[in-house]
């Protein structure tokens, strides 16, 4: 490193962050034995704690399970549930199942996207909202369905989209 003082600062910052991830990861790993069938449950818990899968956590996890990093990364990218980037504090999920589709979920998704200024799969720059789609939420009889922070809103219409944000803001 050319400039030792800057280098040191960066180093310290990274180390602190690393230590924080390591500490929380250790708390998670405490209740696991270290066999491969625990990989998905651990990743699920990591995501629950961090909101996504930090690269460092996946590397440490690979060591813990004695698996190549590529295997952990491969599983992390295979399943739709796992995110590799931080998500917003509020997660709005629009169901894109068949019943919702024939009852107009595409328009609902477009309206929410318009109001938030993002597309499905994206997060607002202030990390306030993430917009996601799900293949089917299984509440087809109440289609179309939007799930905001695990609260299910059934029989949605384009004009009711604003209500979701009002409720989340409360």
């Amino acid at each position: 490193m050319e400039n030792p003082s800057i280098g040191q600062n960066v180093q310290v910052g990274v180390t602190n962050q690393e230590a924080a991830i390591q500490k929380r990861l250790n708390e998670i790993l405490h209740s696991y034995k270290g066999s491969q069938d625990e990989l998905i449950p651990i990743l699920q818990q990591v995501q629950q704690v961090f909101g996504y899968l930090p690269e460092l956590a996946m590397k440490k996890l690979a060591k813990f399970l004695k698996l190549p990093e590529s295997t952990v990364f491969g599983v992390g990218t295979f399943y739709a549930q796992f995110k590799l980037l931080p998500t917003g504090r509020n997660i709005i999920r629009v169901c894109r199942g068949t019943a919702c589709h024939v009852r107009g979920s595409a328009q609902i998704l477009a309206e929410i996207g318009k109001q938030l200024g993002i597309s499905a799969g994206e997060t607002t720059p202030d990390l306030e909202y993430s917009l996601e789609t799900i293949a089917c939420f299984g509440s087809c009889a109440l289609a179309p369905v939007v799930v905001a922070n695990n609260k299910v809103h059934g029989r949605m219409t384009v004009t009711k989209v604003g209500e979701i944000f009002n409720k989340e803001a409360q």
Partner: protein
Amino acid sequence: MSFEEIKEKAILQWKTMQQSESIRILIGMGTCGRAAGAEDILDVLNQELAKRNIQTDILPVGCIGLCYAEPLIEVIKPGKPSVFYGNLTPELMSEIIADYLIADNPRPDLALGTRGEGTLDGIPKLFDLPVLKPQVRISLRNCGNIDPENIAHYIANGGYEGLAKALRMKPQEVIDEIKKSGLRGRGGAGFATGIKWQFCHDVPGDIKYVICNADEGDPGAFMDRALLEGDPHAVLEGMLIGAYAIGALEGYIYIRAEYPLAIQRLRIAIKQMEEYGLIGDDIMGSGFKFHIKIKEGAGAFVCGEETAMMASIEGRRGMPRSRPPFPAQSGLWGKPTNINNVETWSNVSAIIAKGAEWYAGYGTEKSKGTKNFSLVGKVVRTGLIEVPMGISLREILYEIGGGIPENKRLKAIQTGGPSGGFIPESLIDLPVDYESLTQAGSIMGSGGMVVIDEDTCMVDITKFFLTFTQAESCGKCIPCRWGTKQMLDILVDITEGRGKPGDVELLQELAESVKGNSLCGLGQTAPNPVLTSIRYFRDEYEEHIVEKRCSAMQCQALISYYILPDKCQGCMICARNCPVQAIEGGKRMVHVIDQDKCINCGICFDVCPPKFSAVVKVSGPKPSGIPEKPIPVVAKS
């Protein structure tokens, strides 16, 4: 405690509740009920009852299947038949409390129906309503009747009777009984359950597994969720019986992470089983050992396929492998494994308790028993239904479902999700059984039944399914990975006005080769929506390709908006709202949409005041008389 003692206690608890002198209120608290606002209703109930100091027992129950009427409650006053009220709002709930709970007017104008002995003037019996009359409840026997978080309720209603009986039989006798019942896999493929068990039973080995497939991934299907939320023990009992018959000591439930309530109910159920000695190292004192673990899926449709599911349980990417070896020979961790779907397991417990002959009394010659469907889409009474095999689609749609809203025309019924196909209106009298549906080009599938009316474009909805399967294809085998992508590309072209003559033939050719050459069920069935939509709705493809027209007005690229000069008042609302400034005009000038700038968003169509209705949505040629440039208003205001 022996099972007999447990049963006696449970029945006593149940009877005490039934004969209670206080009012009982059952409230549907499945995911559907909650989504419709059941929690708000429960709040009103709790507040008002506390305020007025009325003693009641409130019991959260699962889904009775009348999802269209959610939020739904059942009010039971001592000595009277119970009364169901649906489509509740907090205001209606307050009225019912005042009129029926405090006074004695059951409000026939609000009531759906009654259940139990006796009648109430002006209220029909619930099970005589057209929505319920054709139904037979075997798998869903307890849903909506019992508290799914109380094992005593299940036991008091005949629960674990089947297990007790099975443990007195030899494993082979149990398998024979299932064979005799004619039960076939309810996950979709329809393989005979008894024969599947026999394969796994006959493979030597000390370590065997049973798996419950609760990875209900078909968009448009929620039968298994409702069943697990409403009656988890029915499924768990079936698994125990299967494990005993096959010789498995360990079981897994692979369930979608998107079903948090079902997972929670399963965990509660398993804990209660442990307390009652119904799971563990010495079940019912018989020496039979069995343990169950819950594995949450992480969002991959392909994991509904047996070999992919096992890979996922083992902690790997959920990719299928070629069969043989079949799971019965080499499954989870290379051990003999038997996988059945949620609904199949729930039928097993009923069959053993009541006998194979009783069960085989329902259904057709080759498809015995009943089938659960989630009836959704463009249908008046959406919901979860259980019907005897052999019932016609017409009966399901018009009797149970109450037809199509707004008197629209039926176009097709879609069964089997992305693996199934479209059944056109002309085949509405088709009986629902495995063979008939396959012959029509669709499949029974796991039970999604989506009603499609004239407002749905068949090419667009086929594209919708292919978008799904293409995204969910795991990428292991080329026919599926590239075939679904190529089919989707062609469908996108057709719906966006770039279709060419010969596209339909190319689609058919691709579909046949993906169907014939893919590694697993996902790829083998992904072409079904393409093949059936071409088979029955080829004219819609031609319309898109040749005329660049979408008569259902769903394909945005084939739609244009115009402003009718004889209706426009020059009010400027549309021009102000247009997000791309594509509308020219001025005060008292007929507005004109610049078609090159227009993005077909439809906002002008929505904001044009209804009394003018000057904006029209057209697919096909431009209407005559539309000016090129704004002209003074001609219409009288």
